[in-house]
């Protein structure tokens, strides 16, 4: 079955059926109207009417802070790894965020060092995406090959057809998931498939296409923006790191030892941000990237430089638009790439 349909009412029992193999996460409405990923509780209603979750699901796979190992006895240590986490099933991923997970998986797995603390979680997860019906005000996935519909990068892709959902099966893992509750699914009819196709075309046309991405990438890659210009722009950067933390693909981290009593510790990995002044500061106090402008330039080179795109098979923005919402200085990817593009005209 490459394409199936499921009624909306059958989705909760389907997620229940996944519960014995996976820890299931789904979108949940919280105070203020935000939607976040949370543990799915049996019997809960499914949230379908949302643009995107407040945060990408990155922290489920690459936690903001996690223990790499326990250290007992600091000078005569015994090291113990934490227990492995259960595989996740995640329902309601947006296309951009699924693309971001694929990016993280490739990054953490590449160049001979497969960092399984992240990659095994992504690979073992059941990724169930929900294709987008309408762009949010900050969305630009169409410019970044991040959506609104996906051709790959999901196990199951759900498309809302009103009372029911069309399901694209992307992987054997997705097919196996359907087999957990086969009675809930039916073969998609030619009519269903046609409805989805027309919907996808209509949705695609509602997204605004922005022409600055390619031009911005070129300017960033070739170093066309003078350091003085970066410095002026960076005066609006608060150095809060918010753009990095809400980004589905940002992955920089630091590692520290946290004391647990007098003679024990935990080695912890936690998110870090290249916009922090201390990000490159060495023990001697020497800091090769001391100016704010250099740090902003660094961020954009890393996200949008062709040199990195070549390493990663794509640039580092999936167009989710979260940095647009979080940056109080107008230094998000979309706005600043427009300025870069205009600067080089």
């Amino acid at each position, binding site marked *: 079955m490459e394409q199936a349909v499921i009624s909306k009412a059958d989705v909760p029992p389907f997620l229940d059926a996944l519960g014995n193999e996976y820890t299931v996460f789904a979108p949940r409405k919280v105070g203020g109207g935000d939607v976040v990923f949370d543990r799915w509780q049996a019997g809960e209603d499914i949230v379908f009417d949302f643009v995107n979750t407040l945060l990408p699901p990155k922290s489920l796979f690459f936690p903001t802070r996690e223990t790499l190992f326990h250290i007992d006895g600091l000078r*005569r240590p015994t*090291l113990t*790894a934490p227990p492995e986490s259960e595989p996740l099933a995640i329902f309601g991923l947006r296309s951009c965020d699924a693309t971001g997970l694929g990016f993280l998986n490739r990054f953490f797995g590449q160049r001979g*060092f497969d960092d*399984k603390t992240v990659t095994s979680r992504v690979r073992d997860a059941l990724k169930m995406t929900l294709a987008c019906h309408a762009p949010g005000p900050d969305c630009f996935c169409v410019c970044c090959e991040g959506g609104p519909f996906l051709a790959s990068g999901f196990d199951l892709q759900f498309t809302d057809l009103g009372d029911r959902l069309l399901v694209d099966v992307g992987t054997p893992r997705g097919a196996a998931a359907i087999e957990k509750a086969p009675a809930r699914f039916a073969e998609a009819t030619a009519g269903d498939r046609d409805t989805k196709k027309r919907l996808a075309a209509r949705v695609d046309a509602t997204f605004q296409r922005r022409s600055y991405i390619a031009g911005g990438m070129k300017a960033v890659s070739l170093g066309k923006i003078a350091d003085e210009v970066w410095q002026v722009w960076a005066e609006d950067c608060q150095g809060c790191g918010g753009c990095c933390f809400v980004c589905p693909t940002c*992955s920089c981290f*630091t590692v520290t030892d946290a004391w647990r009593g007098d003679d024990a510790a935990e080695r912890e990995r936690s998110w870090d941000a290249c916009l922090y002044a201390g990000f490159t*500061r060495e023990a001697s106090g020497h800091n090769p990237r001391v100016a704010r402008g250099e740090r902003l330039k*660094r961020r954009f080179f890393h996200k949008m430089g062709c040199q990195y795109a070549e390493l990663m098979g794509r640039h580092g923005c999936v167009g989710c638009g979260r940095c647009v919402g979080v940056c109080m200085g107008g230094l998000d990817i979309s706005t600043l790439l427009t300025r870069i593009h205009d600067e080089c005209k």
Partner: protein
Amino acid sequence: MSASSLYQPHLCQIVRIEDETPDTRTFFLAADNVAWRKDYRPGQFVELSAFGAGEAPFCLAQSPTRAAFIEVTVRRVGWVTNQLHAYEPGDVVGLRGPFGNCFPFERAKGKNLIFVGGGIGLPPLRSLINYVLDRRGDYGDVHVLYGARTPADRVYKKELAEWAHSDQLTLLETVDRGDGGWTGPVGVVTELLKGMKVDASSTIAFTCGPPIMLKFVVRELVNLGLPNKNIVTTLERYMKCGIGKCGHCCVGHQYVCMDGPVYNFEQIRFLPEHA
């Protein structure tokens, strides 16, 4: 193998500690259980853990041809190095590695070699100097130029004394400020380069030291006629993982931990910022 095994270090006991200078010590780590102790390449580095303080990158300071121990020379500067300096023989540190590329010791075969070190910049060069001494027939003339702030700040004093009397290499030393016992030259290390007669086309220079020293050394080597690609250094950056994941050491699109830390100046010219 647990998922976090890339980050979980190998445990190594400190066998011996030698004072080099008032703030620098060499740690000799038991290597019996270190599978790669004879297989690393000069110029590579390790991540060393002082548990409870953290982990930091250090160059391997000895040649793999002399790997009875894993040798790491550490200046006391920050959290990790302060704790390391509080350690005694018998204490246990964590070791991950070896990481990074290496000095181009194959390309250097048959060439004359000049090593220019400043202060704590000698340890990474020493891994190659001793390697060359153990493969002496493969290389031409070897000059080692070493500058320190004061005579007390010279690392590997015993080895320097041996090199001074060796017919295998020529050692030239200088200090910024002498003391009562110092009879050698006083001045910056670049002064030692100025008098040298160099066959520029068949010479490779390896240099490591503080950024300001590097700037002047490179200028002098270029004056001597060395092409940029025959001037080799090793970069130092803040690093957390050593395996191209944490993002701290990136310069341009280079991960210094994976693509470096050894670069020649033809490559460094194209980096957007200098270390």
